[in-house]
Protein backbone atom coordinates (compact mmCIF):
# COMPACT_ATOMS: atom_id res chain seq x y z
CA UNK A 1 0.00 0.00 0.00
CA UNK A 2 1.23 3.44 -0.79
CA UNK A 3 1.32 6.03 1.92
CA UNK A 4 2.54 9.52 2.49
CA UNK A 5 5.92 8.38 3.70
CA UNK A 6 6.80 6.26 0.74
CA UNK A 7 9.89 7.12 -1.21
CA UNK A 8 9.57 8.50 -4.72
CA UNK A 9 11.14 5.33 -6.13
CA UNK A 10 8.46 3.19 -4.48
CA UNK A 11 5.80 5.47 -5.85
CA UNK A 12 7.40 5.26 -9.29
CA UNK A 13 7.21 1.50 -9.13
CA UNK A 14 3.54 1.60 -8.19
CA UNK A 15 2.84 4.22 -10.83
CA UNK A 16 4.47 1.99 -13.40
CA UNK A 17 2.39 -0.97 -12.25
CA UNK A 18 -0.73 1.16 -12.47
CA UNK A 19 0.10 2.24 -16.01
CA UNK A 20 0.68 -1.38 -16.99
CA UNK A 21 -2.60 -2.46 -15.43
CA UNK A 22 -0.82 -4.60 -12.89
CA UNK A 23 -1.51 -2.69 -9.68
CA UNK A 24 -4.03 -4.53 -7.48
CA UNK A 25 -7.33 -2.68 -7.32
CA UNK A 26 -7.21 -2.34 -3.55
CA UNK A 27 -3.94 -0.40 -3.74
CA UNK A 28 -5.10 2.17 -6.26
CA UNK A 29 -6.90 4.44 -3.85
CA UNK A 30 -3.95 4.65 -1.49
CA UNK A 31 -1.57 5.31 -4.36
CA UNK A 32 -3.69 8.17 -5.58
CA UNK A 33 -3.71 9.61 -2.08
CA UNK A 34 0.05 9.38 -1.93
CA UNK A 35 0.44 10.97 -5.35
CA UNK A 36 -1.81 13.81 -4.34
CA UNK A 37 0.78 14.80 -1.78
CA UNK A 38 3.54 14.82 -4.38
CA UNK A 39 3.86 18.06 -6.33
CA UNK A 40 5.78 16.28 -9.11
CA UNK A 41 3.18 13.54 -9.53
CA UNK A 42 1.88 14.98 -12.76
CA UNK A 43 5.33 15.14 -14.29
CA UNK A 44 6.11 11.59 -13.15
CA UNK A 45 3.04 10.27 -14.82
CA UNK A 46 3.63 12.23 -18.02
CA UNK A 47 7.28 11.20 -18.19
CA UNK A 48 6.46 7.55 -17.55
CA UNK A 49 3.78 7.54 -20.20
CA UNK A 50 5.92 9.36 -22.75
CA UNK A 51 8.83 7.00 -22.21
CA UNK A 52 6.67 3.90 -22.60
CA UNK A 53 5.02 5.23 -25.70
CA UNK A 54 8.21 6.24 -27.41
CA UNK A 55 9.94 2.97 -26.54
CA UNK A 56 7.09 1.20 -28.24
CA UNK A 57 7.45 3.26 -31.34
CA UNK A 58 4.28 5.18 -30.74
CA UNK A 59 3.79 8.88 -30.53
CA UNK A 60 3.06 10.32 -27.16
CA UNK A 61 0.15 12.58 -26.77
CA UNK A 62 0.24 16.07 -25.48
CA UNK A 63 1.85 16.10 -22.11
CA UNK A 64 -0.02 19.18 -21.12
CA UNK A 65 -3.15 17.30 -21.97
CA UNK A 66 -2.33 14.83 -19.22
CA UNK A 67 -1.95 17.60 -16.72
CA UNK A 68 -5.07 19.24 -17.97
CA UNK A 69 -6.91 15.95 -17.59
CA UNK A 70 -5.90 15.69 -13.94
CA UNK A 71 -6.98 19.24 -13.37
CA UNK A 72 -10.25 18.60 -15.11
CA UNK A 73 -10.82 15.47 -13.08
CA UNK A 74 -10.20 17.38 -9.91
CA UNK A 75 -12.69 19.95 -11.06
CA UNK A 76 -15.25 17.24 -11.66
CA UNK A 77 -14.59 15.78 -8.24
CA UNK A 78 -15.18 19.15 -6.70
CA UNK A 79 -18.49 19.38 -8.49
CA UNK A 80 -19.69 15.88 -7.73
CA UNK A 81 -18.99 15.82 -4.02
CA UNK A 82 -18.49 18.36 -1.24
CA UNK A 83 -14.94 19.61 -1.15
CA UNK A 84 -14.39 18.29 2.33
CA UNK A 85 -15.16 14.74 1.29
CA UNK A 86 -13.16 14.59 -1.91
CA UNK A 87 -9.89 14.08 -0.18
CA UNK A 88 -11.52 11.56 2.13
CA UNK A 89 -10.89 8.62 0.80
CA UNK A 90 -11.10 6.55 -1.91
CA UNK A 91 -10.71 3.72 0.56
CA UNK A 92 -14.43 3.15 1.13
CA UNK A 93 -14.25 1.11 -2.02
CA UNK A 94 -13.49 -1.79 0.27
CA UNK A 95 -16.70 -1.39 2.23
CA UNK A 96 -19.53 -2.04 -0.18
CA UNK A 97 -22.32 -1.79 2.37
CA UNK A 98 -23.55 1.57 1.31
CA UNK A 99 -26.34 0.46 -0.96
CA UNK A 100 -27.94 -2.05 1.35
CA UNK A 101 -29.76 0.50 3.45
CA UNK A 102 -31.56 2.12 0.58
CA UNK A 103 -34.99 1.25 -0.67
CA UNK A 104 -35.09 -0.41 -4.04
CA UNK A 105 -37.39 2.21 -5.46
CA UNK A 106 -35.36 5.15 -4.23
CA UNK A 107 -34.08 7.28 -7.08
CA UNK A 108 -30.57 6.13 -7.90
CA UNK A 109 -29.06 9.51 -7.37
CA UNK A 110 -30.33 9.61 -3.79
CA UNK A 111 -28.66 6.33 -3.11
CA UNK A 112 -25.33 7.49 -4.45
CA UNK A 113 -23.50 7.80 -1.22
CA UNK A 114 -19.96 8.89 -0.90
CA UNK A 115 -18.60 5.37 -1.10
CA UNK A 116 -20.13 4.70 -4.45
CA UNK A 117 -19.11 8.08 -5.74
CA UNK A 118 -15.57 7.37 -4.63
CA UNK A 119 -15.69 3.93 -6.20
CA UNK A 120 -16.86 5.34 -9.48
CA UNK A 121 -14.20 7.99 -9.36
CA UNK A 122 -11.55 5.35 -8.72
CA UNK A 123 -12.71 3.26 -11.61
CA UNK A 124 -12.82 6.35 -13.77
CA UNK A 125 -9.29 7.30 -12.84
CA UNK A 126 -7.98 3.84 -13.56
CA UNK A 127 -9.80 3.67 -16.85
CA UNK A 128 -8.48 7.06 -17.81
CA UNK A 129 -4.94 6.20 -16.90
CA UNK A 130 -4.80 3.03 -18.92
CA UNK A 131 -6.60 4.66 -21.78
CA UNK A 132 -4.47 6.14 -24.55
CA UNK A 133 -3.48 9.54 -23.37
CA UNK A 134 -4.27 11.27 -26.60
CA UNK A 135 -7.93 10.95 -25.88
CA UNK A 136 -7.73 12.99 -22.75
CA UNK A 137 -5.43 15.37 -24.48
CA UNK A 138 -7.94 16.04 -27.16
CA UNK A 139 -10.80 16.34 -24.75
CA UNK A 140 -9.09 18.80 -22.55
CA UNK A 141 -6.71 20.71 -24.72
CA UNK A 142 -7.93 21.44 -28.16
CA UNK A 143 -10.36 24.28 -28.09
CA UNK A 144 -10.95 24.04 -31.79
CA UNK A 145 -11.22 20.28 -31.83
CA UNK A 146 -14.38 18.97 -33.29
CA UNK A 147 -13.17 15.41 -33.11
CA UNK A 148 -15.13 13.55 -30.48
CA UNK A 149 -12.33 11.13 -29.91
CA UNK A 150 -14.24 9.45 -27.18
CA UNK A 151 -16.75 8.36 -29.75
CA UNK A 152 -17.20 4.70 -28.96
CA UNK A 153 -16.45 1.94 -31.32
CA UNK A 154 -19.57 0.23 -32.46
CA UNK A 155 -18.90 -3.38 -33.11
CA UNK A 156 -20.83 -4.10 -36.23
CA UNK A 157 -24.05 -6.00 -35.90
CA UNK A 158 -23.35 -9.66 -36.19
CA UNK A 159 -19.85 -9.34 -34.87
CA UNK A 160 -21.20 -9.93 -31.42
CA UNK A 161 -22.60 -13.36 -30.74
CA UNK A 162 -25.78 -11.89 -29.30
CA UNK A 163 -26.22 -9.62 -32.26
CA UNK A 164 -26.13 -6.61 -30.01
CA UNK A 165 -23.92 -3.62 -30.59
CA UNK A 166 -21.05 -3.48 -28.17
CA UNK A 167 -19.66 -0.14 -27.09
CA UNK A 168 -15.93 -0.22 -26.69
CA UNK A 169 -12.76 1.56 -27.61
CA UNK A 170 -9.82 -0.63 -28.35
CA UNK A 171 -6.42 1.08 -28.20
CA UNK A 172 -4.86 -1.90 -29.94
CA UNK A 173 -7.11 -1.37 -32.91
CA UNK A 174 -6.23 2.31 -32.95
CA UNK A 175 -2.54 1.45 -33.03
CA UNK A 176 -3.06 -0.92 -35.94
CA UNK A 177 -5.10 1.64 -37.82
CA UNK A 178 -2.28 4.13 -37.40
CA UNK A 179 0.19 1.55 -38.72
CA UNK A 180 -2.09 0.82 -41.65
CA UNK A 181 -2.33 4.49 -42.50
CA UNK A 182 1.39 4.97 -42.18
CA UNK A 183 1.96 2.38 -44.89
CA UNK A 184 -1.18 3.26 -46.80
CA UNK A 185 0.67 4.73 -49.75
CA UNK A 186 -0.20 1.80 -51.93
CA UNK A 187 -3.39 3.59 -52.81
CA UNK A 188 -3.53 5.99 -55.71
CA UNK A 189 -5.20 8.42 -53.32
CA UNK A 190 -2.07 8.76 -51.23
CA UNK A 191 -0.39 11.42 -53.33
CA UNK A 192 -3.42 13.53 -54.17
CA UNK A 193 -4.97 13.61 -50.72
CA UNK A 194 -4.44 10.44 -48.71
CA UNK A 195 -1.35 11.68 -46.93
CA UNK A 196 -3.03 14.97 -46.09
CA UNK A 197 -6.02 13.02 -44.84
CA UNK A 198 -3.96 10.81 -42.55
CA UNK A 199 -1.88 13.67 -41.21
CA UNK A 200 -5.01 15.71 -40.55
CA UNK A 201 -7.13 12.95 -39.08
CA UNK A 202 -5.50 11.74 -35.92
CA UNK A 203 -6.12 8.28 -34.56
CA UNK A 204 -5.49 7.49 -30.94
CA UNK A 205 -2.71 5.10 -31.80
CA UNK A 206 -0.78 7.66 -33.74
Amino acid sequence: MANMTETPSALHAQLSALADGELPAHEIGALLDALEAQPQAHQWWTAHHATSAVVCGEVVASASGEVAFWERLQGRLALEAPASTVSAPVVPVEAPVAMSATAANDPWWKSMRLASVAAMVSVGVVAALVWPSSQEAQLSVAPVSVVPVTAPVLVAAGADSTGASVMLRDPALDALMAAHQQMGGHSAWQAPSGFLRNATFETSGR
Partner: protein
Amino acid sequence: MKFWWQGSKWQLLAGVCVLLVGMQLPAQAQVPVQEVAPVSAWLLRLHEASRHRTYTGTFVVTAGTQMASAKIWHVCEGEQQLERIESLSGTPRSTFRRNDEVLTLYPTARVGIAETRETFGVFPALLKSQSGALDEFYALKPMGVERVAGIEADVVQITPKDGLRYGYRVWSEKKSGLVVQLQTLDVDAKVLEQSAFSELQLDAAVSPAKLSQLMAQTEGYRIERRKAEKTTAAAQGWAMASAVPGFKPAGCYTRPIALLAGASGKTEQSMQWMFSDGLATVSLFVEAFDAKRHLHEGAADLGGATRTLTRKAGAWWITAVGEVPPSTLAQFAQALERKK
Protein backbone atom coordinates in the same frame (compact mmCIF):
# COMPACT_ATOMS: atom_id res chain seq x y z
CA MET B 1 -18.05 7.60 -97.67
CA LYS B 2 -18.09 8.35 -94.00
CA PHE B 3 -18.03 11.82 -92.43
CA TRP B 4 -15.84 12.42 -89.37
CA TRP B 5 -18.84 12.86 -87.10
CA GLN B 6 -20.06 9.45 -88.10
CA GLY B 7 -16.98 7.86 -86.64
CA SER B 8 -16.36 6.76 -83.08
CA LYS B 9 -17.03 8.79 -79.98
CA TRP B 10 -13.30 9.48 -79.81
CA GLN B 11 -13.32 11.07 -83.21
CA LEU B 12 -16.40 13.09 -82.35
CA LEU B 13 -14.80 14.33 -79.18
CA ALA B 14 -11.56 15.22 -80.92
CA GLY B 15 -13.49 17.14 -83.53
CA VAL B 16 -15.37 19.13 -80.94
CA CYS B 17 -12.13 19.95 -79.17
CA VAL B 18 -10.53 21.18 -82.36
CA LEU B 19 -13.55 23.31 -83.09
CA LEU B 20 -13.62 24.83 -79.64
CA VAL B 21 -9.92 25.59 -79.63
CA GLY B 22 -10.22 27.11 -83.05
CA MET B 23 -13.01 29.34 -81.87
CA GLN B 24 -10.93 30.28 -78.79
CA LEU B 25 -13.75 29.40 -76.46
CA PRO B 26 -13.08 29.62 -72.74
CA ALA B 27 -11.79 26.63 -70.89
CA GLN B 28 -15.08 25.90 -69.17
CA ALA B 29 -16.56 24.55 -72.39
CA GLN B 30 -18.35 21.34 -71.52
CA VAL B 31 -15.94 18.89 -72.99
CA PRO B 32 -16.15 15.71 -70.97
CA VAL B 33 -12.50 14.85 -71.31
CA GLN B 34 -12.58 12.29 -68.55
CA GLU B 35 -15.44 10.41 -70.12
CA VAL B 36 -13.13 8.55 -72.41
CA ALA B 37 -10.12 8.27 -70.16
CA PRO B 38 -9.62 4.97 -68.39
CA VAL B 39 -9.51 5.06 -64.62
CA SER B 40 -5.76 4.65 -64.44
CA ALA B 41 -4.97 7.46 -66.88
CA TRP B 42 -7.30 9.77 -65.05
CA LEU B 43 -5.69 8.91 -61.72
CA LEU B 44 -2.28 9.50 -63.19
CA ARG B 45 -3.33 13.03 -64.09
CA LEU B 46 -4.49 13.59 -60.51
CA HIS B 47 -1.24 12.24 -59.19
CA GLU B 48 0.84 14.51 -61.38
CA ALA B 49 -1.26 17.52 -60.41
CA SER B 50 -0.53 16.92 -56.75
CA ARG B 51 3.20 16.88 -57.55
CA HIS B 52 3.38 20.01 -59.59
CA ARG B 53 1.09 22.53 -57.95
CA THR B 54 1.97 24.89 -55.16
CA TYR B 55 -0.82 25.77 -52.80
CA THR B 56 -1.93 26.60 -49.29
CA GLY B 57 -5.28 25.84 -47.78
CA THR B 58 -7.38 24.44 -45.00
CA PHE B 59 -8.11 20.74 -45.22
CA VAL B 60 -11.10 19.18 -43.47
CA VAL B 61 -11.68 15.47 -42.92
CA THR B 62 -15.05 14.10 -41.89
CA ALA B 63 -15.32 10.44 -40.96
CA GLY B 64 -18.51 9.15 -39.41
CA THR B 65 -19.35 11.57 -36.64
CA GLN B 66 -15.79 12.80 -36.34
CA MET B 67 -14.16 15.78 -37.98
CA ALA B 68 -10.63 17.15 -38.08
CA SER B 69 -8.94 19.99 -39.87
CA ALA B 70 -5.46 21.21 -40.69
CA LYS B 71 -3.69 24.05 -42.40
CA ILE B 72 -1.69 22.92 -45.45
CA TRP B 73 1.32 24.32 -47.26
CA HIS B 74 2.52 22.47 -50.36
CA VAL B 75 5.33 23.51 -52.66
CA CYS B 76 7.21 21.88 -55.51
CA GLU B 77 10.71 22.79 -56.51
CA GLY B 78 11.89 20.72 -59.40
CA GLU B 79 11.43 17.11 -58.36
CA GLN B 80 11.40 18.03 -54.70
CA GLN B 81 8.11 18.30 -52.90
CA LEU B 82 7.71 19.92 -49.54
CA GLU B 83 4.62 19.88 -47.42
CA ARG B 84 3.63 21.21 -44.04
CA ILE B 85 0.46 20.17 -42.24
CA GLU B 86 -0.42 22.05 -39.11
CA SER B 87 -3.21 20.39 -37.13
CA LEU B 88 -6.08 22.61 -36.10
CA SER B 89 -7.79 19.91 -34.05
CA GLY B 90 -6.72 17.13 -31.76
CA THR B 91 -3.23 16.95 -30.34
CA PRO B 92 -1.14 19.94 -31.45
CA ARG B 93 1.32 18.70 -34.07
CA SER B 94 3.14 19.75 -37.21
CA THR B 95 3.84 17.28 -39.96
CA PHE B 96 6.52 18.01 -42.53
CA ARG B 97 7.21 16.00 -45.66
CA ARG B 98 10.13 16.29 -48.02
CA ASN B 99 9.47 13.74 -50.77
CA ASP B 100 9.27 10.47 -48.83
CA GLU B 101 10.78 11.79 -45.59
CA VAL B 102 8.13 12.61 -43.00
CA LEU B 103 8.66 14.32 -39.66
CA THR B 104 5.87 14.92 -37.16
CA LEU B 105 6.62 17.25 -34.27
CA TYR B 106 4.57 17.26 -31.07
CA PRO B 107 5.44 20.62 -29.48
CA THR B 108 3.84 19.96 -26.13
CA ALA B 109 5.59 16.66 -25.50
CA ARG B 110 8.72 17.86 -27.35
CA VAL B 111 8.84 14.62 -29.27
CA GLY B 112 9.36 14.20 -33.00
CA ILE B 113 8.63 11.10 -35.06
CA ALA B 114 10.67 10.61 -38.22
CA GLU B 115 9.50 8.15 -40.86
CA THR B 116 10.34 7.22 -44.40
CA ARG B 117 7.28 6.70 -46.55
CA GLU B 118 8.79 4.57 -49.25
CA THR B 119 5.38 4.24 -50.79
CA PHE B 120 5.58 7.77 -52.15
CA GLY B 121 8.11 6.43 -54.60
CA VAL B 122 5.96 3.61 -55.89
CA PHE B 123 3.77 5.93 -57.91
CA PRO B 124 3.24 6.39 -60.74
CA ALA B 125 4.94 3.07 -61.52
CA LEU B 126 2.45 1.13 -59.40
CA LEU B 127 -0.44 2.96 -60.99
CA LYS B 128 0.80 2.04 -64.43
CA SER B 129 1.38 -1.58 -63.49
CA GLN B 130 -2.07 -1.86 -61.95
CA SER B 131 -3.92 0.00 -64.65
CA GLY B 132 -5.47 -3.20 -65.95
CA ALA B 133 -6.79 -4.13 -62.54
CA LEU B 134 -8.14 -0.65 -61.92
CA ASP B 135 -10.13 -0.64 -65.14
CA GLU B 136 -11.29 -4.19 -64.51
CA PHE B 137 -12.70 -3.45 -61.09
CA TYR B 138 -13.77 0.20 -61.28
CA ALA B 139 -15.80 2.29 -63.71
CA LEU B 140 -15.41 6.04 -64.07
CA LYS B 141 -18.31 8.36 -64.72
CA PRO B 142 -18.19 12.18 -65.10
CA MET B 143 -20.76 13.96 -62.94
CA GLY B 144 -20.39 17.53 -64.18
CA VAL B 145 -18.74 20.59 -62.73
CA GLU B 146 -19.07 22.05 -59.24
CA ARG B 147 -17.33 24.68 -57.16
CA VAL B 148 -15.27 23.61 -54.17
CA ALA B 149 -13.44 26.12 -52.00
CA GLY B 150 -14.10 28.71 -54.68
CA ILE B 151 -12.56 26.59 -57.42
CA GLU B 152 -14.24 25.07 -60.46
CA ALA B 153 -13.85 21.33 -60.24
CA ASP B 154 -14.70 18.36 -62.43
CA VAL B 155 -16.72 15.81 -60.51
CA VAL B 156 -16.13 12.16 -61.25
CA GLN B 157 -17.66 9.10 -59.67
CA ILE B 158 -15.66 5.90 -59.50
CA THR B 159 -17.96 2.96 -59.06
CA PRO B 160 -16.74 -0.52 -58.12
CA LYS B 161 -17.80 -3.34 -60.39
CA ASP B 162 -18.16 -5.80 -57.53
CA GLY B 163 -19.03 -5.72 -53.85
CA LEU B 164 -15.47 -6.12 -52.63
CA ARG B 165 -14.58 -2.44 -52.60
CA TYR B 166 -15.98 1.00 -52.01
CA GLY B 167 -16.71 3.69 -54.54
CA TYR B 168 -15.41 7.25 -54.67
CA ARG B 169 -16.56 10.67 -55.76
CA VAL B 170 -13.76 13.03 -56.65
CA TRP B 171 -13.67 16.76 -57.26
CA SER B 172 -10.55 17.81 -59.14
CA GLU B 173 -9.57 21.27 -60.23
CA LYS B 174 -10.49 21.65 -63.88
CA LYS B 175 -7.20 23.01 -65.09
CA SER B 176 -4.64 20.79 -63.39
CA GLY B 177 -6.56 17.90 -61.89
CA LEU B 178 -5.60 18.71 -58.30
CA VAL B 179 -7.97 16.83 -55.98
CA VAL B 180 -9.90 19.33 -53.91
CA GLN B 181 -12.49 16.98 -52.46
CA LEU B 182 -12.73 13.22 -52.12
CA GLN B 183 -15.59 11.12 -50.81
CA THR B 184 -15.55 7.41 -50.07
CA LEU B 185 -18.92 5.81 -50.77
CA ASP B 186 -20.36 2.57 -49.46
CA VAL B 187 -22.22 0.05 -51.60
CA ASP B 188 -25.36 2.21 -51.40
CA ALA B 189 -23.38 5.29 -52.49
CA LYS B 190 -23.72 6.73 -48.99
CA VAL B 191 -20.78 8.91 -47.96
CA LEU B 192 -18.55 7.14 -45.43
CA GLU B 193 -15.80 9.68 -45.33
CA GLN B 194 -14.89 12.97 -46.91
CA SER B 195 -11.69 14.96 -47.28
CA ALA B 196 -11.90 18.44 -48.74
CA PHE B 197 -10.29 21.83 -48.88
CA SER B 198 -12.54 24.39 -47.24
CA GLU B 199 -10.21 27.09 -48.45
CA LEU B 200 -7.52 26.80 -51.11
CA GLN B 201 -5.10 29.23 -52.68
CA LEU B 202 -3.42 27.84 -55.77
CA ASP B 203 0.02 29.03 -56.84
CA ALA B 204 0.44 30.66 -53.47
CA ALA B 205 3.76 32.17 -52.49
CA VAL B 206 5.23 29.34 -50.47
CA SER B 207 8.95 29.36 -49.85
CA PRO B 208 10.59 25.93 -50.08
CA ALA B 209 13.55 27.29 -48.14
CA LYS B 210 11.28 28.40 -45.32
CA LEU B 211 9.59 25.00 -45.13
CA SER B 212 12.96 23.25 -45.13
CA GLN B 213 14.10 25.55 -42.39
CA LEU B 214 11.04 24.81 -40.28
CA MET B 215 11.49 21.09 -40.84
CA ALA B 216 15.05 21.34 -39.56
CA GLN B 217 14.07 23.17 -36.39
CA THR B 218 14.10 20.17 -34.10
CA GLU B 219 16.20 21.61 -31.31
CA GLY B 220 14.74 20.64 -27.96
CA TYR B 221 12.87 17.71 -29.48
CA ARG B 222 13.64 14.08 -28.90
CA ILE B 223 13.48 12.58 -32.36
CA GLU B 224 12.41 8.97 -32.60
CA ARG B 225 12.60 7.06 -35.83
CA ARG B 226 9.60 4.87 -36.46
CA LYS B 227 10.69 2.08 -38.67
CA ALA B 228 9.03 -0.95 -40.10
CA GLU B 229 11.36 -3.74 -41.14
CA LYS B 230 10.80 -5.17 -44.58
CA THR B 231 10.17 -8.87 -44.78
CA THR B 232 8.09 -11.33 -46.77
CA ALA B 233 5.01 -13.21 -45.72
CA ALA B 234 6.68 -16.48 -46.74
CA ALA B 235 9.66 -15.73 -44.52
CA GLN B 236 7.25 -15.14 -41.64
CA GLY B 237 5.48 -18.42 -42.40
CA TRP B 238 2.26 -17.08 -43.89
CA ALA B 239 0.49 -17.37 -47.22
CA MET B 240 -2.89 -16.63 -48.78
CA ALA B 241 -4.87 -19.77 -49.52
CA SER B 242 -6.84 -17.85 -52.12
CA ALA B 243 -6.43 -14.40 -53.58
CA VAL B 244 -9.06 -11.71 -53.11
CA PRO B 245 -9.95 -10.54 -56.63
CA GLY B 246 -8.17 -7.37 -57.69
CA PHE B 247 -5.88 -7.12 -54.68
CA LYS B 248 -2.16 -7.67 -55.05
CA PRO B 249 0.44 -7.97 -52.30
CA ALA B 250 2.03 -4.57 -51.70
CA GLY B 251 4.69 -5.19 -49.10
CA CYS B 252 5.21 -7.00 -45.85
CA TYR B 253 6.76 -5.56 -42.70
CA THR B 254 7.42 -6.38 -39.10
CA ARG B 255 6.95 -3.66 -36.56
CA PRO B 256 6.43 -3.24 -32.82
CA ILE B 257 2.89 -2.94 -31.62
CA ALA B 258 2.10 -0.32 -29.03
CA LEU B 259 1.90 -1.07 -25.40
CA LEU B 260 -1.77 -1.49 -24.89
CA ALA B 261 -4.10 -1.19 -21.99
CA GLY B 262 -3.58 -4.20 -19.80
CA ALA B 263 -0.51 -5.29 -21.71
CA SER B 264 2.35 -6.77 -19.83
CA GLY B 265 4.76 -4.04 -20.75
CA LYS B 266 6.68 -6.02 -23.33
CA THR B 267 7.08 -4.75 -26.85
CA GLU B 268 5.92 -7.37 -29.30
CA GLN B 269 6.49 -7.67 -32.98
CA SER B 270 3.64 -7.86 -35.39
CA MET B 271 3.64 -8.73 -39.07
CA GLN B 272 1.85 -6.34 -41.39
CA TRP B 273 1.09 -7.70 -44.84
CA MET B 274 -0.40 -5.14 -47.19
CA PHE B 275 -2.57 -5.54 -50.26
CA SER B 276 -3.87 -2.99 -52.73
CA ASP B 277 -6.12 -2.87 -55.75
CA GLY B 278 -4.68 0.54 -56.65
CA LEU B 279 -7.30 2.52 -54.76
CA ALA B 280 -8.17 0.55 -51.64
CA THR B 281 -5.58 -0.90 -49.29
CA VAL B 282 -5.86 -3.73 -46.78
CA SER B 283 -3.41 -4.58 -44.01
CA LEU B 284 -3.31 -7.99 -42.40
CA PHE B 285 -1.71 -7.82 -38.97
CA VAL B 286 -0.61 -11.01 -37.30
CA GLU B 287 0.56 -11.22 -33.72
CA ALA B 288 0.69 -13.84 -30.99
CA PHE B 289 -2.68 -14.40 -29.37
CA ASP B 290 -2.98 -12.83 -25.93
CA ALA B 291 -6.09 -13.85 -24.01
CA LYS B 292 -5.87 -10.71 -21.87
CA ARG B 293 -6.01 -8.30 -24.78
CA HIS B 294 -7.65 -10.14 -27.63
CA LEU B 295 -11.19 -10.33 -26.42
CA HIS B 296 -13.50 -9.50 -29.31
CA GLU B 297 -13.56 -11.34 -32.60
CA GLY B 298 -15.46 -9.87 -35.51
CA ALA B 299 -15.91 -6.71 -37.50
CA ALA B 300 -15.75 -3.22 -36.07
CA ASP B 301 -16.93 0.05 -37.47
CA LEU B 302 -14.89 2.92 -36.11
CA GLY B 303 -16.66 5.48 -38.25
CA GLY B 304 -15.38 6.53 -41.63
CA ALA B 305 -14.16 4.34 -44.45
CA THR B 306 -11.58 2.31 -42.55
CA ARG B 307 -12.95 -0.98 -41.23
CA THR B 308 -11.39 -3.60 -39.03
CA LEU B 309 -12.00 -7.28 -38.45
CA THR B 310 -10.33 -9.58 -35.96
CA ARG B 311 -10.04 -13.34 -35.88
CA LYS B 312 -8.27 -15.89 -33.72
CA ALA B 313 -6.40 -18.48 -35.72
CA GLY B 314 -4.82 -21.01 -33.39
CA ALA B 315 -2.07 -19.33 -31.46
CA TRP B 316 -2.37 -16.20 -33.59
CA TRP B 317 -4.52 -13.13 -33.62
CA ILE B 318 -5.29 -11.71 -37.03
CA THR B 319 -6.51 -8.16 -37.53
CA ALA B 320 -7.56 -7.01 -40.97
CA VAL B 321 -7.71 -3.23 -41.50
CA GLY B 322 -8.69 -1.54 -44.72
CA GLU B 323 -10.86 0.87 -46.65
CA VAL B 324 -13.10 -1.94 -47.87
CA PRO B 325 -16.41 -3.50 -46.82
CA PRO B 326 -16.30 -5.89 -43.82
CA SER B 327 -17.04 -8.86 -46.09
CA THR B 328 -13.83 -8.17 -47.99
CA LEU B 329 -11.85 -8.05 -44.76
CA ALA B 330 -13.44 -11.36 -43.81
CA GLN B 331 -12.22 -12.89 -47.08
CA PHE B 332 -8.70 -11.71 -46.34
CA ALA B 333 -8.72 -12.94 -42.77
CA GLN B 334 -10.10 -16.34 -43.77
CA ALA B 335 -7.65 -16.79 -46.63
CA LEU B 336 -4.57 -16.18 -44.50
CA GLU B 337 -3.01 -19.45 -43.44
CA ARG B 338 0.00 -20.57 -41.48
CA LYS B 339 2.59 -22.44 -43.52
CA LYS B 340 5.09 -23.41 -40.87
